[in-house]
């Protein structure tokens, strides 16, 4: 795979290492517009080609090389630039356009622009806090690609259990694991008990239905 990574800050460095792990034989091109950062990037990522381009030149680079690029990842320190380069990548029909945003408040704006994949690096903070502090429900993962959803539910209501068990026994495409209050991991729905946490993974629409039952209770 030929990946174009735009940016030289923290997000871009994490992305570069991840790409190397995922696709060690692939070609990684990093574009940075601050000349001082280019040398540091070359030393840090010897496996990548690092190019210095002016802000306005990057768009031309995408246009000229669009036909041989499989993925564009925008990871600059400005969401404005990320959006700008994503638009160009989309216009040039790059198969994969991914943006790593800086401010979570821009998620909706990027979504409305139909940027196919948006990564919000901060989204793990509320998830981890919800898990540690024992929130009633917690969306652990929602795939942007496959509509798979993983959630955890606190079993704190006796009346909730029979309803949940009924729903889950009819949902063969949902996998469940239960962790009791003492930390024991159980795989059978029948073993679900009060005070523990139920982990579910399955199609989004199925899991959403379960979450609606929990919220009703």
């Amino acid at each position, binding site marked *: 795979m030929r990946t174009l990574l735009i940016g030289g800050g923290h997000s871009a460095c994490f992305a570069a290492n991840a790409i190397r792990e995922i696709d060690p034989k692939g070609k990684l091109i990093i574009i940075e517009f601050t000349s001082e950062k280019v040398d540091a990037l070359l030393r840090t990522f010897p496996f990548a080609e690092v190019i210095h381009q*002016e*802000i*306005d030149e990057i768009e031309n680079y995408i246009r000229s090389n669009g036909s041989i690029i499989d993925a564009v990842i925008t990871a600059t*320190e*400005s*969401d*404005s*630039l990320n*959006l*700008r380069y994503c638009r160009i990548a989309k216009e040039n029909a790059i198969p994969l356009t991914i943006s790593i945003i*800086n*401010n979570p*408040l*821009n998620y909706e*704006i990027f979504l409305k622009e139909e940027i196919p994949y948006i990564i919000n690096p901060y989204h793990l903070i509320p998830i981890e806090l919800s898990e540690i502090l024992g929130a009633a429900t917690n969306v652990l993962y929602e795939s942007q690609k496959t509509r798979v959803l993983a959630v955890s539910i606190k079993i704190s209501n006796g009346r909730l259990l029979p309803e949940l068990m009924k729903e889950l026994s009819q949902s063969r495409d949902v996998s469940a694991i239960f962790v009791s209050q003492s930390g024991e991991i159980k795989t059978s729905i029948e073993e679900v008990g009060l005070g523990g946490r139920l982990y579910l993974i399955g199609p989004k629409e199925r899991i959403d239905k379960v979450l609606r039952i929990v919220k009703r209770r």
Partner: protein
Amino acid sequence: MEISVIFPTKDRECYVKRAVRTAFKVKLVREVIVVDGGSRDRTVKLAKKEGAEVIVQSDLIYPGKGVAMRDGAYLARGDILIYLDIDIKNMTPKFFEKLAEPLINGEAEFVKGCFERASGRVTELVAKPLLRMFYPEIARFKQPLSGEIAGLRKLFYKVDFERGWGVDVGLLIDLYKLGARIVERDIGYKDHDMKSLHALTDMAYEVAGAILRRAIRDWKIDIQWAEKYLKGVRTIDLGLESGAGFA
């Protein structure tokens, strides 16, 4: 030549509609960009409704006027960028056109707006004295902290933006150092709310910081200089031990 108008905002729902509409009436305008600092009111919604392009500034900090201005420049596609404070109550297209005129005519590459109003307290008490010390060549500007500016887009990509309130004076110094042709234009009477004295403390701190950082960068401050100038302010309690660091 096309113009991009940029408004940094935060909780400005009562001004945004009029400002965006006025900006769209400006000759040669291509787009109006609102860079929001995380408003909790309807600023973003109203800006979008009026046809502005909206993005939230990249940093989570506020006030981050400089970050908002930088993000606006990065999103803009016009040849000329115009920045205006959104809370100007008597805003008309003339404000924008007066700022853009020297750029369109080729007289300048960067235009600093000034207006008929007594200069602000931070301007008179912080910015001007420091500019006179370190950058006397630009001390002639009547309002070096004015948020009403215009410039060629490509020029804004050659300088670093201060993140907060020091951005306006920082741009002025950096563009001057870069050799840009800079003029000041009177944009007329500006009706807007003045900040309280208390609210100006952070602003004064950031403005002073922006000028002093550049003075250090440009080798205008050294130990000998500090000794020479600070001898004159020894009667002020600087929180330093008596005589520490100064002969």
